[in-house]
């Protein structure tokens, strides 16, 4: 695969606006950060955000997701369809298309389990990692996601 939601595989990309000071430090990304409403709500409500026993996402996890979203946005990636909290304190970023579903499930900061599922075919699973802002001035995505080509059909 050649595209990482707009990135070429293995290419190093500058992160011009790292989220080192926290994921809420970049209010300009209105459309993208609006997608974070559900996870923000869960974060602010804390454990039991579902009214029962669900774990809240940690601030570190939110920061890592925000960093990922900034990279995707800077790369011209299609905006995710949905970003939601999971029962276990994780966050899932999803893209929906007529014949394909892609998700990144983030349970640990800076690491995601990716699932790409096409209608009528077995899903493809792989891991995606990205660097923390404090570790480098740029990022390298270690895996690729072939989302870009579907943008035209969404």
């Amino acid at each position, binding site marked *: 695969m050649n595209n990482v939601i707009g990135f070429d595989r293995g290419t190093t990309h500058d992160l011009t606006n790292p989220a080192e000071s926290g994921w809420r430090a970049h209010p300009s990304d209105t459309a993208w950060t609006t997608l974070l409403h*559900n996870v923000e*709500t*869960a974060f602010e409500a804390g454990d039991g955000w*579902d*009214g*029962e*026993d*669900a774990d809240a996402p940690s601030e570190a996890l939110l920061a890592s997701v925000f960093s990922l979203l900034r990279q995707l946005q800077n790369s011209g990636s299609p905006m995710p*369809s*949905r970003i*939601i*909290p*999971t*029962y*276990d304190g994780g966050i*899932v970023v*999803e893209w*929906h*298309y*007529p014949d394909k*579903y892609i*998700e990144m*499930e983030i349970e640990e900061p800076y690491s995601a389990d990716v*699932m790409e*599922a096409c209608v009528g075919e*077995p*899903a493809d*699973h792989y891991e995606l990692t990205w660097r923390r802002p404090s570790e480098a001035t740029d990022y390298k995505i270690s895996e690729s996601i072939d989302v870009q080509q579907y943008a035209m059909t*969404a």
Partner: protein
Amino acid sequence: MPSENDPIEDDEYVYRRVLHTWCDLNSEFLAHRIDRQVFHPTDKDKEGISLYRALFVTPVQVARDREGNLGRYFVVRLSVAQVRALGLSLKPDPQDGLRGHSLMSEIRHGLKGEEKKRAKELQLRLAELASADIVFVPPP
């Protein structure tokens, strides 16, 4: 009079409770109105996720939260035949409280590796089926 211990027949339906966070009635695609997280097992689901047989309960009963209130949960309905066509099983598991409890053992807490990946795919397929049959919408 049916018993909760009776085998589950293909022509039955089962209900699953859906936290509002994981339902988007305005989703661009009908198949994704319900998120697969609805079928993600929690740490309580060591034997499988819970579904309730429509023979024994109503959607409103399933939708009530711990305090008996409505508002937090949607309810979806699945055809047992369609569930089994995915290679999933359903077995009666009567419990105190809500009647008609059943278990889907292929989707349970603690799966690893390939089993976990397969379970995630199945959760997605269940969510697609469920998206087409939302039988209870909580009051605003």
